[in-house]
């Protein structure tokens, strides 16, 4: 094996090991070199198995490439490079090492040819990424990080049990199509792995870790977080569960439900976290449909989403970095002092809203076309609604409240040059892919003569966007927006609820009540259970206290009697 043919994660892991040994400037050089070199090596590599070994009698393939995994490999390299450039000003070794290990684990996961390697990197993803949350070094971030870690580790354990069961039934650890249609123990294995993937993919009700932890990470850490974890899960679903009908409905739900949360959310990075789930929903729908067009669309959308979502997170990170604020109610009017950031953010917003000529358009339209082509009309309508919704909360709300709206009076400057460069790279990619989609299409797993720029697509999407914009303007003119009072900061969330038409508000309020009640019940149940357990197993509990010898002997007698009874009768 040549040095250029090592698995991609090896370069990142080695880099992470070397990093602490280097002085400040050299660290930056190394950080930039790793994704560049590793990316070039990957580009030169032919497809197939590159590294095989045996463990416990199973064939393992820790480094396997094909068109699907290589595409994810490319975008992860791009994302890692952009995020590293964006974070160059950071002088925090913990974050630097953690982000290298994290990116390496993501690459390791997509290039895992067997389920056991996948599990190892699955857990590494969780363990390394949590430090990007801890690195904020606040009590709040620590707690969010611990919740995040717990859920991720549970996902890994489910995966492990599923994998062992799968290996037991099929006798092979190879990571191929798994599906949910088998019988008996194979079905259990299939479901366990499915749920494990689902947790990382932020399926509805399993998504809370994402919106909880991502906005608590450092401004630069969130860029890494947004790129890798969910996309690894999308990749895993695409390989293991393509064409599973259930995914269509789960995905459609994922595109719709975050919109309601995103609209009332004040923390702009949390808004983006919700829109991340929404975009992943599109990919999940594509995987669920499972035709060549749909899978291409899902994968292409994952590729684009990494870049434009990264761009949006970067612009919000820049705002947070410069002003120290991220709540929509405290920001506004920043375009005067951060014009470049504003423009870059608008490019990201246009991409996520799928404006023609921007990257989101060329991939989202593939998923939508595939849904129509397979007669999923209701799903298509849901996706249409979701497209309008994402335009509202990510395309308009983010830039509007951060850079325009009422002038918050904050005067600052543009972010550091490296941040601007990183955002520019991402923005250029957004426009380039939007304008020359063939560049991306040639990398997709299936060959298709698909062209997004035909009259129906462009017209439909443009109509959608214009009517959404119209609705926004109309709402604004009708005074359904909060009046600009000097006391705006008093109760921001209350104001946000007024953004919604009043009718919707009443329904939603009931929904929140039920939602809160359920959460409360669950939480109280857990606390009660924990307390109950503690009375037995706590230091003073019957199970932990030192017993008098007499009681010990009594138990000996009980066990002896039990065994005698069992053996004699």
């Amino acid at each position, binding site marked *: 094996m040549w040095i250029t043919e090592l698995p991609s994660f090896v370069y990142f892991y080695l880099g992470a090991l070397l990093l602490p040994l280097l002085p400040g400037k050299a660290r930056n050089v190394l950080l930039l070199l790793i994704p560049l070199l590793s990316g070039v090596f990957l580009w030169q590599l032919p497809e197939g198995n590159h590294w095989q070994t045996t463990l416990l009698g199973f064939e393992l393939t820790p480094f396997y490439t094909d068109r699907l995994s290589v595409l994810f490999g490319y975008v992860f390299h791009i994302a890692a490079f952009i995020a590293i450039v964006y974070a160059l000003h950071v002088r925090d070794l913990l974050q630097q090492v953690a982000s290298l290990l994290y990116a390496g684990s993501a690459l390791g996961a997509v290039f895992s040819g067997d389920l056991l390697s996948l599990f190892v990197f699955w857990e590494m993803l969780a363990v390394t990424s949590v430090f990007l949350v801890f690195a904020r070094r606040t009590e709040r971030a620590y707690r969010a990080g611990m919740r995040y870690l717990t859920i991720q*580790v549970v996902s890994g354990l489910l995966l492990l049990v599923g994998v062992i069961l799968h290996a037991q039934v099929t006798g092979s650890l190879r990571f191929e199509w798994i599906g949910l249609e088998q019988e008996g*123990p194979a079905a259990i294995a299939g479901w366990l792995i499915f749920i494990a993937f689902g947790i990382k993919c932020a399926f509805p009700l399993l998504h809370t870790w994402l919106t909880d932890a991502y906005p608590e990470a450092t401004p630069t850490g969130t860029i890494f977080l947004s790129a890798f974890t969910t996309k690894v899960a999308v990749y895993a679903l695409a390989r293991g569960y393509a064409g599973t009908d259930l995914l269509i409905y789960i995905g459609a739900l994922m595109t719709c439900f975050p919109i309601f949360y995103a609209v009332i959310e004040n923390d702009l990075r949390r808004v983006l976290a919700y829109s991340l789930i929404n975009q992943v929903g599109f990919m999940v729908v594509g995987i669920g449909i499972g035709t060549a067009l749909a899978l291409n669309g899902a994968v292409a959308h994952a590729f684009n989403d990494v870049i434009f979502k990264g761009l949006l997170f970067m612009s919000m990170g820049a705002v947070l970095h410069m002003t120290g604020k991220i709540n929509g109610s405290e920001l506004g009017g920043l375009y005067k002092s951060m014009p470049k950031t504003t423009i870059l953010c608008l490019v990201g917003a246009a991409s996520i809203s799928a404006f023609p000529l921007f990257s989101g358009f060329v991939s989202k339209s593939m998923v939508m076309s595939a849904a129509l082509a397979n007669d999923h009309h209701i799903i298509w309508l849901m996706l249409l609604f979701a497209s309008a919704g994402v335009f509202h909360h990510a395309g308009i709300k983010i830039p509007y409240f951060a850079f325009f709206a009422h002038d918050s009076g904050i005067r600052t400057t543009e972010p550091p040059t490296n941040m601007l460069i990183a955002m520019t790279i991402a923005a250029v990619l957004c426009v380039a892919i939007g304008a020359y989609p063939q560049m991306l299409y040639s990398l997709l797993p299936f060959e298709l003569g698909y062209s997004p720029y035909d009259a129906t697509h462009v017209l439909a999407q443009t109509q959608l966007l214009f009517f959404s914009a119209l609705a926004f303007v109309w709402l604004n003119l009708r005074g359904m927006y909060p009046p600009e009072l000097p006391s705006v900061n008093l109760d921001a969330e209350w104001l946000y609820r007024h953004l919604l038409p009043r009718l919707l508000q009443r329904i939603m309020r009931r929904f929140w009540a039920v939602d809160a009640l359920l959460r409360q019940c669950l939480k109280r149940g857990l606390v009660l259970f924990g307390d109950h357990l503690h009375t037995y197993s706590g230091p003073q509990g019957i199970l932990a206290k*030192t017993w008098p010898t007499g009681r010990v002997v009594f138990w000996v007698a009980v*066990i002896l009697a039990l065994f*005698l009874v069992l053996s004699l009768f």
Partner: protein
Amino acid sequence: MLTHLPILQVIVPLLAAPLCLMLDGSRFVWAFALLASLLAGVISGLLLWQVETGGTLSYALGGWQAPIGIEYRIDLLSAYLLLIVSAMGTLVLLGAYRSVNKELAAGARTYFYVAYLLCLAGLLGIVAAGDAFNVFVFLEISSLGSYILISLGRDRRALWAAFQYLVVGTIGATFILIGVGFLYAMTGTLNMMDLAQRIPSVSESTTVLVAFTFLVVGVCLKLAMFPLHVWLPNAYAFAPSIATAFLAASATKVAVYLLFRFSFGVFGVALTESILPLQEVFIGLGLAGVFVASLVAISQHNIKRMLAYSSVAQIGYMIIGYGLDSQAGTTAALLHLFNHALMKAALFMALAAVVYHHGSVLLKDLAGLGTTMPWTAAALVGGGLSLIGVPLTVGFISKWYLVQAALEQDLWWLALLIVVGSLLAIVYVWRMIEPMYFAPASSDRPRSVGNTPEAPRSLLLVIWILVAANLYFGIDTRLPVGIAEAAAQQIFGVRF
């Protein structure tokens, strides 16, 4: 010389023990004890090699042939256990010197090494002996040694813990003696091979059933199966750190060996199955052990006590492997025997290093350990990961085989519970890691004499050999897996 290895294995530490009393100065005593246990380790390595190449060894003591004389019988399983016990005994003793000097009064040190060697000799004797009565004799020798070791702890509760262990342990040994006596009454022999041949012809009699029950309960007491584990946490928590590391790595392992030897080797698989509903009883008790002991471990403040409860939980896994009553289950249990010895020795030795500086191992003593004693803290993390069963550590290998064994019988709920059990291990290991890396070191802590806050090098060396073994055998599994599989096959091979 080579033909006498089976007896030398036992006699070397046994004779070395009283010789220690003649030496002056704890350094000489330690070096001499280390030499003796090192010899025992070399002998066990040679024995394993002989057994692997030449098959089972039978040694007639004093030239008296088997049914009349005492036979020492070394098959693959015994050779494997001898290696575990003597290797752990040697490694722990290698790092013992500074820690024993710190924790024990000058007058007690010689007795510590004497008791240590006696205990080692007893444990090796149990495994080497081929007749049931000698097993009892060596069991008593090792138990007496361990009572002394525990009572030497400087916490006064150590005396009480040793006393309770003495009472309970004596009951256990008595049960074993009763069982052996009944068997003798029925078959007229004490030799295990003869017993195995003659028992089937009398297997209908109630006496044999009762003998079996007494033996199993007695052994379960010694191996601290839940709910007969109550003596263990206090004994481990208050014994000198070195004694804890040694006992945790070897004593319970030998008791688990006895369980397999008696029920599958002497009584035979078929009879054992007909006497007890193995699966229901032992899987149930094993699971109860895993969950109850892990939950209790979670809320302990004394780390030694916490790890002691974790030992009870880990023994639960071995009991589950036993209860599965299959070749795969036995392989898993035997494998965990080896792996658990490695992880607990590593962890308890690391705790010995903490005790060396802080005098105690309460949770608050760990605060800031990541900066003050980075190597020790890292070793605790390594051992902890292995305890959880993270891939690339030995813990993962044993869990993997155990889960496989459970799935082989379509007990997927059991497989799931085993994995959930590891989730509890994550919690208590995390409770240990959190203060080490996330809490600032308290400034008012008593500083040791010398200015280096890290543990003595001799101790660190041993700790890291053990941690490295945890990682090495997690990747290159040939030695333990090969032997465990072959030994399990020997037990189940005759079965149709």
